[in-house]
């Protein structure tokens, strides 16, 4: 059951120009987390910025009862979040949403992350390895410095394939270029992806072409985070008139259930 807690920040470190990793202790919350779910974070003063900010679970430490976030400073809220220090408290609500559906048996799994979209895939990768799946992680970023998840993924023991736009590390170019060059679609049983809208659309197209089933973690602006305000609506492929709520029916959706029109 999700809860509202004042998490005790134990770490909030800058990993690159605009990427931060924060860990806070919130035992009840940590105990409930599943890969692909998110927490809804309130920063700043009571009235500004007003709304909570949704952030994916980067990982969870059940031993410490802590939740770990990976976030990119893009505006007011994340800027304020980056100013929190160890021993501060952070107002968090969660875990919320429907996470990834994990395979019951040992499978060959491909994870494709773009930018900070790698966050939910790291927690997922760990859970997949615990289920003895073979896990390949493709991570595309602008440049080497943004490949901040490499070490964690190494520890987890996945096959890590980085791609950078500037070629400063791994393959030069888009993750889709890397997929076409370096990954045998035949090997892939399941695919999970999270990243910029256009990247996810391209990866979805790759999966469709190779008839790979999989899931995607989507983003929409959110207010309540629990399905009450109907604000995070997104067009569902199945039925044009119908809008899914990313916070409750998602953020994770089956690739076949997502329409990418919005992103074009």
């Amino acid at each position, binding site marked *: 059951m999700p809860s509202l807690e004042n998490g005790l920040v134990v770490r909030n470190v800058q990993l690159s120009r605009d990427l931060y990793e924060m860990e806070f202790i919130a035992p009840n919350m940590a105990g409930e987390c599943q890969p692909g779910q998110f927490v809804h974070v309130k920063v700043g003063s*009571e009235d500004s910025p007003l709304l909570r900010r949704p952030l994916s679970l980067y990982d969870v430490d059940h031993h410490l009862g802590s939740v770990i976030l990976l976030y990119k400073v893009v505006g007011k809220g994340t800027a304020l979040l980056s100013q929190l220090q160890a021993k501060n408290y952070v107002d968090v*609500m969660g875990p919320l949403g429907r996470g990834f559906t994990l395979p019951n048996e040992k499978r060959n799994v491909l994870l494709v992350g773009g930018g900070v979209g790698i966050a939910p895939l790291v927690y997922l990768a760990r859970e997949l390895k615990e289920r003895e799946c073979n896990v390949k992680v493709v991570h595309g970023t602008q440049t080497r410095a943004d490949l901040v998840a490499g070490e964690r993924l190494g520890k987890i023991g996945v096959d890590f394939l980085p791609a950078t736009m500037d070629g400063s590390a791994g393959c030069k170019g888009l993750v889709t270029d890397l997929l076409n060059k370096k990954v045998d679609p035949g090997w892939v049983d399941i695919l999970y992806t999270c990243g910029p809208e256009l990247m996810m659309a391209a990866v979805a197209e790759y999966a469709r072409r190779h008839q790979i089933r999989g899931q995607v973690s989507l983003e929409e*602006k959110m207010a309540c985070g629990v399905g009450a305000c109907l604000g995070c609506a997104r067009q569902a492929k199945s039925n044009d008139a119908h*809008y899914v709520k990313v916070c409750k029916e998602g953020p994770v959706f089956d690739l076949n259930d997502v329409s990418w029109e919005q992103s074009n």
Partner: protein
Amino acid sequence: MKKEAMLQSDQGSSPNLSVNLGGINLINPVVAASGTFGYGSEYRDFINPAELGAVAVKGTTLEPRAGNAPPRIYETASGMLNSIGLENPGIDGFLKNYLPYLNSQGVTVLANIAGNTIEEYAEMAARIQAHGGIAGIELNISCPNVKKGGLQFGTDPDMVYQVVAAVKAQTSLPVIPKLSPNVTDIVMIARAAQAAGADALSMINTLMGMAVDINSRKPVLGNIFGGLSGPAIKPVALRMIYQVHQEIDLPILGGGGVINAEDALEFIMVGATAVSIGTGIFVNPNLARDVVQGISRYLQANGLDNLEQIRGAALQK
């Protein structure tokens, strides 16, 4: 902070917070605002909906509606814009699939209905009356009247009169028109509602607003315009409730920007019988509980034992 100080100190027996809103008895004056608390179950993990004085459910129409194209929400300075577009399962879907949970929890439910025509309002009221399980009907008259070429019901006194009268004719339940703040003279609208037999008034709904993305150079909302809510609109809400309470003898369900107990007390002091909380719930899912406790502490710290002692206090000379 004197305010806070007052809210902290805690002495004496807990005061009586129950209120009567136009014939509806509420265990406390805090009401979830329509559209912000879904159908009561969405926040169940954080708060028991029965803890609230009442829950106004999402605006309901005669037929199901898919709502507006996204993006539907956008944060503004101390506020937010929304253009949900009344996405809802329709009156029958609501009564059949959503009301049972609220009833099972013993929640005092306010239906919130929106029609394209006066007939639609009347028809929904009749179905609610026949079905039961509802404590009162909040009339969302902030929506465009298709027959009158989209002019909002809530901005024309005559239409307000007709809608309220038509609904009253179909139900014995308390009827609470929810006034739009996007008008020149709120008192005139309130008077029309009173003349038509309204049992109480709900105010305020959102202020119409918009925002622009300077990079795409387009409106941020798919619907272009949306309703502004949150702390930003509180001064306007307080002013309108003050004006209406001064002139019209009807209980008021007052709100707009409440995010803490002090805000709620301001609304009671300008004459509100009960206080609605909406956007504030998104910020703090426990807001209803916090407001009830805060009001209780304030009364105790000031040696008061009920809300009548402060209601409308700001209007006394």
